[in-house]
């Protein structure tokens, strides 16, 4: 029995109506979920036709492939009346204008783990399908380059399968005998063909240049392989996975509560912006209503972290085009901000601050004067930076008309957040489908029009000002009341009554020792992160740990989009594009 709050009756959805009309026989089942997203089981043979229909022909067209991943269902206990499957691949589509999600699930048997590739429908499916192959061993027929993407090429097994060990202690001791050493070395050999690149054209022989994994311009461990004709980029292939830590796998062994610190480390510049979608998803499963004060505290922390993230981006962006000084000023301001965050959360970059059902603790005494000082101080600084960075002639010359794309391309590739708004589409989830009480705040959604590197910067800079506005409103109208929901699944339980009555004490004890048992169901929490839509799709089978945690990050899509917008530019432009993209590698690799 599913018992959480916002179960919707899905049969009325117009999408389902039209889908049923066109593909009645392809639909196996319509599943109910806790997040209200229509979830339809489709027969494997017809999934591509259905997706094609939804993208091009349906009355309500789904232009964005929002997410694509899989679930290993083999050890799942409570499946209710879902169709039988060993593995389930899910496609999540998003209709941007109406903010409507649609989830399509395809059941697969272990004996036949094969699906048609949809890379010809959505180019963005490329990396997602590679990830599914890498993590689950499901093959996609017709994929141009189905190689491992996160794990090294010599890896044995598929990590997100339930039979793959999650801890090093579950595996034998590590050894590297000579033959394996040689094998690993050979796997490192660079062969352009494997990366989908030609060695020469009719006119010239190409030079291949490795940027990374260690390079001052890449902001972390990632490798870009450049195919160069002179200094002109013929093609660039990002090689990700150096920062892969298996966050999704960890989700399957941590308790619901103890997974929260791991989310901090996904997009390590955005702190609570990672906690929020996760706890939102869990709260949907548990049916918890978060009290007002906790919501406003969450919003305030989110916006503080958004500014913090954008300040890091701002400085490194200037540095990537060769301006040495701004980064120091911006880090100084970020330091002030982190001081406030530390005063509130006790930690700076990894606050681990949100809890299932609220926040960890109430705001400390004197928080308001700290925050007020900052929101009074920051606008003048932002004006100064405008003069220093954004109005600089050389910087404009370096970033205007570089890496430009249109709104359609952005949606096609799954780009959201500032990257989408820079193309002229004022689409912000905080406005379009407010969560955590954002509908009560007044702020603008800044946009720009050309979609080039400079415009992406313009949008982010303007966003910092809007965030300051939101923080000021939090400051002026901070509600009073509890900071945690009064609900048996709030973790840890509010402690006031634990010393008085044994029932509350037991609940509290179980909550912190075993962790809460979240009712079975599936839900996604989705927020407007600092870099775009950030969402956690969690599956519970009524246990103390999640059955599956799918983390969809904006950096992954942004990284995949770098090659198409870089081709034809020069090496320095690639660095400008990287700088303007604002990715965090832990957010790409998870």
């Amino acid at each position, binding site marked *: 029995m599913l018992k959480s709050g916002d179960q919707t009756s899905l049969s009325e959805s117009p999408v389902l109506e039209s889908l049923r009309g066109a593909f009645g026989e392809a639909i196996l089942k319509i599943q109910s979920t806790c997040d209200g997203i229509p979830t339809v089981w489709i027969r494997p043979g017809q999934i591509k036709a259905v997706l094609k229909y939804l993208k091009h022909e349906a009355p309500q067209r789904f232009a964005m492939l929002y997410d694509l991943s899989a679930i290993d269902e083999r050890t799942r206990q409570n499946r209710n009346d879902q169709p039988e499957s060993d593995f389930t691949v899910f496609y999540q589509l998003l209709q941007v204008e109406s903010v409507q999600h649609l989830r399509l699930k395809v059941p697969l048997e272990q004996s036949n783990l094969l699906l048609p590739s949809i890379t010809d429908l959505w180019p963005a499916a490329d990396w997602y399908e590679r990830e599914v192959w890498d993590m689950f061993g499901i093959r996609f027929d017709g994929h141009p380059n189905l190689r491992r993407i996160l794990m090294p090429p010599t890896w044995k097994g598929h990590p997100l399968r339930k039979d793959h060990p999650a801890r090093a202690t579950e595996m034998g001791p590590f050894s590297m005998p000579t033959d394996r050493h040689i094998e690993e070395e050979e796997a490192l050999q660079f062969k352009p063909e494997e990366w989908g690149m030609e060695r020469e054209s009719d006119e010239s022989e190409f030079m291949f240049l490795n940027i990374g994994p260690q390079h001052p311009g890449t902001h972390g461990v990632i490798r870009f392989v450049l195919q160069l004709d002179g200094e002109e980029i013929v093609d660039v292939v990002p090689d990700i996975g150096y920062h892969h830590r298996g966050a999704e796998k960890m989700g399957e062994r941590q308790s619901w509560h103890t997974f929260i610190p791991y989310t901090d480390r996904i997009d390590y510049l955005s702190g609570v912006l990672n906690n929020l979608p996760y706890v939102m998803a869990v709260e949907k499963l548990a049916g918890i209503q978060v009290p007002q004060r906790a919501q406003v505290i969450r919003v305030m922390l989110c916006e503080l972290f958004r500014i913090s993230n954008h300040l890091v981006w701002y400085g490194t962006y200037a540095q990537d*085009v*060769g301006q040495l000084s701004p980064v120091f000023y911006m880090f100084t301001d970020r330091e002030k901000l982190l001081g406030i965050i530390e005063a509130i959360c006790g930690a700076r970059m990894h606050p681990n601050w949100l809890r299932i059902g609220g926040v960890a603790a109430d705001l400390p005494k004197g928080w308001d004067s700290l925050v007020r000082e900052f929101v009074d101080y920051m606008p003048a600084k932002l004006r100064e930076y405008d003069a220093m960075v954004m109005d600089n002639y050389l910087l404009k*010359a*370096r970033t205007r008309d570089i890496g430009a794309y249109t709104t359609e391309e952005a949606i096609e590739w799954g780009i959201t957040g500032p990257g989408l708004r820079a193309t002229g589409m004022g689409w912000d989830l905080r406005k379009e489908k407010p969560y955590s009480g954002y509908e009560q705040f007044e702020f603008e959604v800044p946009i720009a029009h050309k979609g080039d590197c400079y415009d992406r910067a313009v949008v982010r800079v303007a966003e910092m000002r809007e965030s300051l506005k939101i923080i000021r409103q939090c400051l002026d109208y901070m509600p009073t009341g509890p900071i945690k929901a009064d609900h048996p699944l709030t973790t840890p339980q509010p402690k006031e009554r634990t010393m008085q009555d044994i029932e509350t004490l037991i609940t509290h004890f179980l909550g912190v020792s075993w962790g809460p048992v979240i009712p079975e169901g599936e839900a996604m929490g989705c927020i407007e992160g600092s870099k775009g839509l950030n969402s956690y799709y969690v599956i519970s089978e009524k246990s103390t740990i999640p059955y599956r945690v799918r983390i969809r990050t904006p950096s992954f899509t942004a990284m995949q989009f770098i090659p198409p917008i870089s081709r034809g530019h*020069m*090496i320095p432009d690639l660095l400008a594009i990287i700088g303007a993209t604002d990715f965090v590698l832990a957010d790409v690799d998870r």
Partner: protein
Amino acid sequence: MNPTVQTLLITLVILFTLLNFAGVLIWVERRVLALLQDRLGPNRAGPFGLFIIVADIIKIFTKEDWVPPFADRKLFILAPAIILFTVLLSFTVVPFAPGIVVLDLNVGLLFFLGLSSMGIYSTVLAGWASNSKYALIGGLRMSAQMFSYEVFMGLSLMGVVILAGSLNLTQIVEVQRGMWFIIPQFLGFLIFMIAGLAETHRMPFDLPEAESELVAGFHSEYSSMKFGMFFVGEYIGLTLISAMIVTLFFGGWLGPAWLPAPICFFLKTFAFILFFILLRAALPRPRYDQLLSWGWKYLLPLALINLIVTGAIVLMTGNPQPN
């Protein structure tokens, strides 16, 4: 005093001063940059952190001196020597004060331009001999950058030569007793300064190094004192360009009577060095094709206009500096 001994003495004093000055500049640049960037900079070792210079020198001498096996060994070793050799040799014609000049050549300016062209070989050869891709791109950028900027670097100075009627640097300074050439030759000054910056490949024209793109560009593969020679060469080059600007446009050692000529020269030069450090802190780096197109499209025509206008005015008014 025996003139040979005197020349030798002057040479040694200048050499000693320059090499030490380059060392001090390392500290100056780091402290000034830190000041501009709201940081502290090296402030621990000795008074004002001055001993960092000693520490740096000890460090750089004791690092492993590694020649990559894939490099062209001879050229690899030769390249850093060229830069130091050419910049130091250029200083022989710079008049620090009346009589304090190693070589009072009558074609001093030409000698300077010739040596500065030679100096580029250092970067280009380093890029080539390293046999590494980043170094190669850096070397290529340097050659393209310099072949473009050389052209009007020379042209921008021709106005000065016309006005002074001489290529001898001492005479050029003497001629400026009435008026520094910065006033009639302001355009020439701007162009020369930009070209000079490109010549020393310092920010914002550090495309051959371009840290965020090419790691360290042409000297990616260099270590220890070979790298140190590029480093010192860059600082002496910076001093040289500043000294040349002062000599050609700001009246060299000329100044108020109470100020000794060498001190006056030093102060002016140092002001320009500080200005270049400020530029480094302030400006982003243009892209390499932008740098070239600005050079050819704007600076070269401007240099030509400057030359023609100066020539025309001199022709109309008669020789302004009868020698």
